[in-house]
């Protein structure tokens, strides 16, 4: 039941926003405080779900709800979590809460705070639903629920090019969703059930090889749009750049993970034969994404756009991990998901802080010498960049390193030579990643402040600290003690791949 609560709380909060402003929560601040409270309650439920979760048996689906929904077509309202989904659920609740906390003091320009609060809460419902749904149609419903609020957030609170960015975002991802639906139904019709737990337990038996290959291709492309995988990534830089800070944080922090989560949760277990056929291609596109994303970052002038492209590279490592079809690779992918959520979430918060103070995220406009003018902001930015470039001891490293380990010895049915090459290319990508982050840091934090630049911006506010510090602490915790996450994911991943 606990996941029903987790969705009911933000949903009720969103519905409460329908009450006219003169009856309930008259001031904008009250609305923001209300949103913070609701998301805090959701986070509390998420934490209690964590305590209720039996970490001794992470491969079992726990905390289940399984009710009939539309019995005539075999549709069930089936929720639950195992070691693969639980970290993502908690990450969602955490990031949403931090976004509200940040909004408390720094609301995005554009007003209409009631609508924003409602949208973010609906977004949270959709995300939690996606990560806990265990019925294919239910999964798809939540998967789609997420798109509309995000579209509106970009459309109403975005930057100058928001209209084009929002349309591209929604059309592109809807196209992907259509393919996902087609692929899932293809499997479901052939297998005769919509239940993901049952389907996963069968490891593809009962579905012919041809159907599996087709279905994986459909689902794979659909999820790859979301992830995003090269060359299906072009919606992402625009959407990230135009979205307001909270939008970018949630987009990068959680929304992208829906794609990779879908691959691991739906595509791989339902169509293992299809996965084996397509994995080398997935791996190839993933490493192209790593290098391509890094090179694109190297020539960016805009901070936000650079972070957006860096997501292409980082998610490339996640996809490479999945493509190896090994336990270590998928562990890497799940680890990379969380690490990227924490670090890139932090980076987008920081980009928002830069924008608040300098009015722009253009690196040339910001100038240099931020370590002198805004030392704390610059220090945290340095920390986040170093974490993102994959320094061991911080969260970003383990996902990359394990993905490379997986690629060195991929699943026995995959071409080893190709994957070893992928590993080497990924290594070069990691080097380029360091290159563009250091270039960015040198450009805006080092040097002296240009004479014409604005004065020292306002000091870092308590709300900004409140949004940053949990992410910094978790980046350190997960980085210094990777066991926290790996222990949770290792067992379910083995079960997923059919091992003991």
């Amino acid at each position, binding site marked *: 039941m606990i996941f029903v609560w987790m969705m009911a709380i933000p949903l009720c909060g969103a519905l409460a926003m329908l009450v006219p402003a003169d009856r309930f929560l008259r001031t904008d601040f009250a609305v923001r405080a209300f949103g913070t409270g609701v998301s805090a309650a959701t986070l509390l439920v998420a934490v209690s779900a964590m305590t209720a979760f039996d970490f001794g048996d992470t491969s079992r689906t726990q905390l289940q709800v399984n009710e009939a929904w539309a019995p005539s077509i075999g549709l069930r309202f089936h929720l639950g979590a195992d070691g693969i989904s639980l970290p993502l659920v908690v990450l969602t609740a955490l990031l949403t809460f931090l976004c509200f906390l940040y909004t408390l003091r720094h609301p995005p320009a554009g007003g209409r705070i009631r609508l924003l609060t409602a949208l973010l809460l609906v977004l949270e419902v959709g995300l939690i639903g996606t990560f806990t749904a265990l019925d294919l149609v239910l999964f798809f419903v939540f998967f789609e629920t997420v798109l509309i609020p995000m579209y509106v957030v970009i459309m109403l609170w975005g930057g100058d090019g928001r209209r084009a960015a929002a349309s591209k975002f929604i059309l592109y991802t809807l196209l992907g969703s259509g393919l996902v639906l087609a692929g899932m139904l293809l499997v479901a019709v052939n297998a005769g059930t919509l239940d993901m737990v049952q389907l996963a337990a069968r490891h593809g038996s009962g579905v012919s090889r041809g159907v599996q290959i087709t279905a994986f291709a459909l689902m794979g492309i659909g999820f790859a749009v979301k992830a995003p995988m090269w060359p299906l990534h072009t919606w992402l830089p625009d959407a990230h750049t135009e979205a307001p800070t909270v939008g970018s944080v949630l987009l990068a922090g959680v929304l992208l993970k829906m794609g990779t989560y879908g691959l691991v949760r739906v595509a791989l277990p339902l169509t293992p034969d299809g996965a084996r056929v397509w994995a080398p291609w997935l791996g190839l596109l993933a490493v192209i994404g790593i290098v391509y994303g890094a090179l694109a970052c190297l020539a960016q002038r805009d901070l936000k756009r650079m972070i957006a492209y860096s997501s292409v590279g980082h998610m490339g490592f996640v996809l490479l991990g999945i493509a190896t079809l090994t336990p270590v690779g998928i562990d890497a992918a799940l680890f990379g998901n969380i690490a990227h959520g924490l670090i890139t979430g932090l980076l987008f918060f920081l980009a928002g802080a830069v924008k608040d103070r300098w009015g722009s995220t253009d690196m040339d406009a910001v100038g240099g010498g931020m370590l002198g003018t805004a030392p704390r902001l610059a220090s945290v930015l340095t920390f986040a960049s170093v974490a993102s470039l994959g320094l061991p001891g911080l969260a970003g490293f383990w996902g990359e390193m394990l993905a490379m380990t997986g690629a060195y010895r991929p699943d026995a049915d995959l071409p080893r030579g190709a994957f070893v090459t992928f590993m080497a290319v990924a290594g070069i990508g990691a080097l380029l990643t360091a290159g563009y982050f*250091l270039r960015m840091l040198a450009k805006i934090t080092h040097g002296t402040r240009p004479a014409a630049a604005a004065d020292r911006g306002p000091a870092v506010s308590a709300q900004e600290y409140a949004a940053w510090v949990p992410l910094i602490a978790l980046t350190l915790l997960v980085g210094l003690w990777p066991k926290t996450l790996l222990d949770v994911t290792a067992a379910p991943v083995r079960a997923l791949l059919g091992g003991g």
Partner: protein
Amino acid sequence: MIWLASLAILLPFLAAFGGMLGGPSLGRLLGGRSALRDGPALIACAPVAVSLVLAAVVAFVVWQDPGERTGTLTVIDTGSVPIRVGLQVDGLSAVVALMVCCVALAVQVYSVAYMDGDRRYSSYAAFISLFTAAMLLVVFAGDLLVLYAGWEVMGICSYFLIGHRWEERANSRAAVKAFLVTRLGDAGFLIGIIVLGLGARTFEIHGVLSRVWTMPDATLTAAALLLLAGVAGKSAQFPLHTWLPDAMAGPTPISALIHAATMVAAGMYVVARLYGVFAAAPGALAVLGVVAVVSMVGAALAALAQDDLKRVLAYSTISQLAVMGAALAVGAKSAAVFHLLAHGAFKALLFLAAGCVIATTGSALLANHGGLRRGMPVTFWSMTAGFAALAGVPPFSGWFSKDSVIEAAQHAALHGGGTTEAGWFAYAPLNSTRHGEITGPPGGVAWLVYLGLLLTVALTAAYAMRAWLMVFFGEPRGTYEIREPSRIMTWTVAALAVPAAVLGFFGLGASELRPHPGPALLGIGLAILGAGTVFLVWNRDPASDPAAGLGPVRRVFARGFYVDELYAMAIVRPVQALARGVVRFDRRGVDAAVVASGRGARRLGGLLRIPQNGNPQTYLTGLLAGVVAITALAVIFR
């Protein structure tokens, strides 16, 4: 034992956090400017001092009761080969850790005076602490991935410390260059670890070494070569050496700590640590030998022509590290570690003394020094000991260690085969190799190494002599007042002069490290030749630079053989152009296709819209035409 070692690592690590977050506030709390009440300085120095004591205890216990001790904190299941978070203490790690702690403490103490008044002293000291912790982690690591973690953290600390004065773009560039060049090697290093770990089915160093002989030769050679890439990056060996001379942009104590005694030595330490792997891959050893010869001769020539005292020392570091690499390449691990320790002592001394010189004269350029021996006696005598050790003057430490390297190279060149290892640094799995004895490199490489070493000895003496003469002799060439800088600085330097002078005698305890008459005399002779030539040139005109005698090649040497320019042309600019190309392609290629497909859909919609123009006449006409067509078809095909 393991607890002591982990505590020695943990203390500076916590000090780093403490200093970063609470250094200045502790300073305010204690409210004094005296050395004992200076908050950040206290946080910086006290933990390293305790670590030094712990490292000394560890070294003493290991000396009394040799053998290796391992301890595992936890095992991380990765889904493949597990990572064992653990440490390993043995003779090699204990003695290197002791050296690291000594240098780190000296640098921290020295920095209190050198960085006095610096606004960012607290973060500076915190990064030194973090660096010390990371280096100790590398030294004590019992698992390859734990080692790699320390390895990379050192790299980022080096980046922060080189860029300590980030206001100047040149420092910022040097910091970025240092990190990226070493990271280039580290990409290979990480892949090497993965290859090795998956090949041996464990990342534990002990486990890897004991399973070396079960791995196919191709895997071993590939792993060893990949590891060498990382080693070349960290130890600034050709072709990844270019970051080190530029890294001199950092504050001088940092150069002493990172770019002389510790971090750059980590590369050679790792080769010694994983020597079983390299010994089983003669191809990799041969590559190491060639790389070492190129580095040591090339860097020594470059050092001969530098204008900047710190850059002379930087190139000499590259050259001396290559001497260690050469020793490792001919199978003389003990000699390499011996030289590593001796070099750590005398190079830290030289850099810190150079810091005194720079603090007094306000310039790092040799052309602005001169005649300093009268006003700065402590610095003069200490630095003389350092230069003597560097040049290999008996009985200073460098002479003993270099002699043992030459002896090993000579043995390999004349008799083939490597030396058998015993003594201090012997490491159990090495002695249980398949062949019973380490195979040496191919004869050609051994000869190359031997001749390269001899040439380097002469060149080293020459550039050491030149720097010594130009700094301390002749007439003063500046308007500054010649006097010793603060006492803390000179005392630290004087204290470091002791190990630089006497460390060599410890080598008498092991048979393979004792001086041998042949190579010893040869070494001394060549050193006299090199130093004497420089002295004669200088003596003709003490006011001028002896390097002027090099003529036109001086410029080539001074620029480090234009390797930087070559890289800029061959790598940096193409990558930048490629990056711009990718951005263009992304907009005009990939994204344009997406947008075009959207436009295409709209255009298609536009075509379909033509019949739906809202005009009833058109609709009716269409309807009638349809009826007629159907009727006609029905009639025709009935």
